[in-house]
């Protein structure tokens, strides 16, 4: 108890030195915790969204772009394919389920996805209010969309062409909100869902001008109808080996396997994270050096104090404990600081991530699985840095020190 008190007072007595060490520790611990969190969250998010989708069918182009645009709704779509061409694959005996998607419009940065109710079921969505879209120009909103723009059942809004915040507004074709989804914790929260025919109707009108509205809308047939991508689920793993290759070499369509693309993406991200992690370790090493030097220097200045404590009746073990306590206190402060720092950064990034990447962090304020390890590591580094100064205190020659005053 007495040791703890003296340690605290000693740290506060030399605030500049203590704060420097604390800041270094905080940055190092915060950085490592942040990387751990982002990596864990990214892997979880990517894997969660890709779950159950074995292959994506779309227009030729970059397979990664196809996956990003159709599964994560991040990148621009690769282009459209005709539904007729995709039809044989959607009804292929090896395919268990197929969900067509029609992309291209948005509402203030939130994507409008023309699809079937199967899409909502696939991502485990439940209606919080209202009902599924039944007719053309009815829309079901993800929870974040509804919340952001205060839309209710029966509200009307106009879609915009393209995916940016600015774009041509499809005036005269307002959507009516028929339902709002409960928060699902995945990409569903960030999109607006409507029937395929809504998208077809709007773009058919758009192309053929307003006069032919009725005709174009109702007489469009399968041969002219287009979708952007089709999400497919296979009946057996054999299909995964055969279908994509066959489609890519023999048709005008592109087949991309999400698992492969996501792995590629994560490994790309991984090298960036690797670099950041090295910086984190470097900071940690710097913090350790700083604490080591701080303690060594301050003990050099305080060696009379230590000799005095011995002459007043404190044992060697008590002096060693004092030095280690000072380091451990710094370590604990660093752990707390790092935790707050990493959470602060996440909280600041969160709105941007959600908006731009539909990347919703979950339970980010809770200590992650690796964070206990980081805390332990920080504490260990501090104690290690304090060991040599501590041993010097332990072996201090009190008579010599006192007589050289």
């Amino acid at each position, binding site marked *: 108890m*007495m040791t703890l008190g*003296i340690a605290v*007072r*000693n740290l*506060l*007595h*030399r605030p500049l030195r203590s704060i420097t060490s604390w800041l270094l520790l905080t940055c190092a611990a915060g950085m490592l915790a942040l990387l751990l969190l982002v990596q864990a969250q990214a892997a979880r998010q990517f894997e969660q969204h890709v779950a159950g989708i074995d292959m994506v069918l779309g227009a030729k182009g970059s397979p990664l772009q196809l996956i990003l645009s159709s599964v994560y709704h991040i990148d621009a779509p690769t282009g459209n394919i005709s539904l007729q061409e995709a039809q044989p694959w959607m009804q292929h005996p090896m395919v268990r389920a197929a969900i067509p998607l029609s992309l291209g419009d948005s509402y203030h940065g939130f994507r409008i996805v023309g699809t079937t109710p199967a899409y909502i079921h696939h991502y485990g969505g439940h209606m919080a209010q209202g009902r599924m879209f039944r007719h053309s120009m009815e829309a079901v909103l993800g929870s974040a969309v509804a919340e952001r723009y205060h839309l209710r059942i029966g509200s009307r809004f106009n879609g915009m062409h393209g995916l940016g915040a600015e774009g041509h507004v499809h005036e005269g074709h307002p959507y009516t909100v028929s339902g709002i989804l409960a928060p699902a914790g995945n990409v569903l929260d960030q999109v607006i869902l409507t029937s395929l025919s809504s998208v077809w109707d709007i773009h058919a009108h758009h192309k053929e001008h307003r006069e032919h509205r009725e005709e174009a809308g109702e007489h469009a047939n399968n041969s002219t109808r287009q979708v952007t991508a089709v999400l497919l689920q296979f009946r057996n793993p054999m299909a995964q080996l055969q279908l994509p290759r066959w489609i890519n070499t023999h048709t005008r369509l592109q087949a991309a396997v999400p698992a492969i693309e996501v792995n590629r993406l994560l490994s790309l991200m991984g090298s960036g994270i690797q670099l950041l992690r090295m910086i984190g370790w470097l900071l940690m090493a710097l913090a350790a050096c700083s604490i080591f030097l701080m303690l060594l220097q301050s003990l050099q200045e*305080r060696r*009379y*104090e230590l*000799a*005095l*404590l*011995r*002459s*007043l*009746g*404190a*044992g*060697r*073990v008590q002096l060693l404990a004092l030095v280690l306590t000072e380091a451990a206190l710094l370590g604990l402060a660093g752990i707390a600081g790092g935790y707050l720092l990493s959470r602060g950064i996440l909280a600041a990034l969160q709105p941007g991530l959600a908006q731009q990447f539909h990347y919703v962090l979950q339970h980010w304020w809770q200590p992650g699985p690796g964070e206990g390890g980081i805390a332990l590591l920080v504490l260990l580094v501090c104690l290690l840095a304090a060991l040599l100064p501590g041993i010097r205190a332990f072996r201090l020659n*009190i*008579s010599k020190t*006192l*007589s050289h*005053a």
Partner: protein
Amino acid sequence: MLQTTLLQYRYGQRVLTFPPLQCGAGEVLLVTGASGAGKTTLLHLLAGLLLPRAGQVRIGGTVINHLPAAQMDRFRGRHIGIVYQQSHFIAALTVQDNLQLAARLARKPAAATRMEALAHALGIGHLLRQYPARLSQGEQQRVSIARALLPAPPLILADEPTASLDDDNCMAVARLLQQQARQQQAALVIVTHDNRLKTLFHQQTVVLEPQAGLATLPL
């Protein structure tokens, strides 16, 4: 209270020899000698900070030469109060906390009233909440006397307690030291080359003879 036989201490090739000493409870023993006579060495031997090559130091009923390091530290805390030539303090603690720390390390926590009474007697009652670095040398020396006295040890060792003080402060500090030691019935050993003190303590004085080659040693 304090008894020693002929003590020897060895610095490399040189061997220092000290005459036997004796000092009873409530008595004062003044040990003088020129620089290099080994005064500080003797004091550190008496305090158990150094171990003699030959001879015994007996404090109360205990021969301290044979105590292991940890027990020696504890024994010193409980039984010996030391006043140094240069006052050392824990800079991060106030005067009050410095005093209390000494009492706690001696495992004799002092009541606040006792600490205040002692501080008043030594004329530092108004300084208890200050940090030691802010005090003058005379005030610092009084604080170290208070620190040595607070746990009420049976033996007080003072190493040049007045060397850095002017005449007025020298007399005042020396008198206070003697008064308080007598009041607590402690044996007081003062090691000094300060001639001013000889006029004050003429009862018992041991003069250390200059020892061959000692002037060149780093003590």
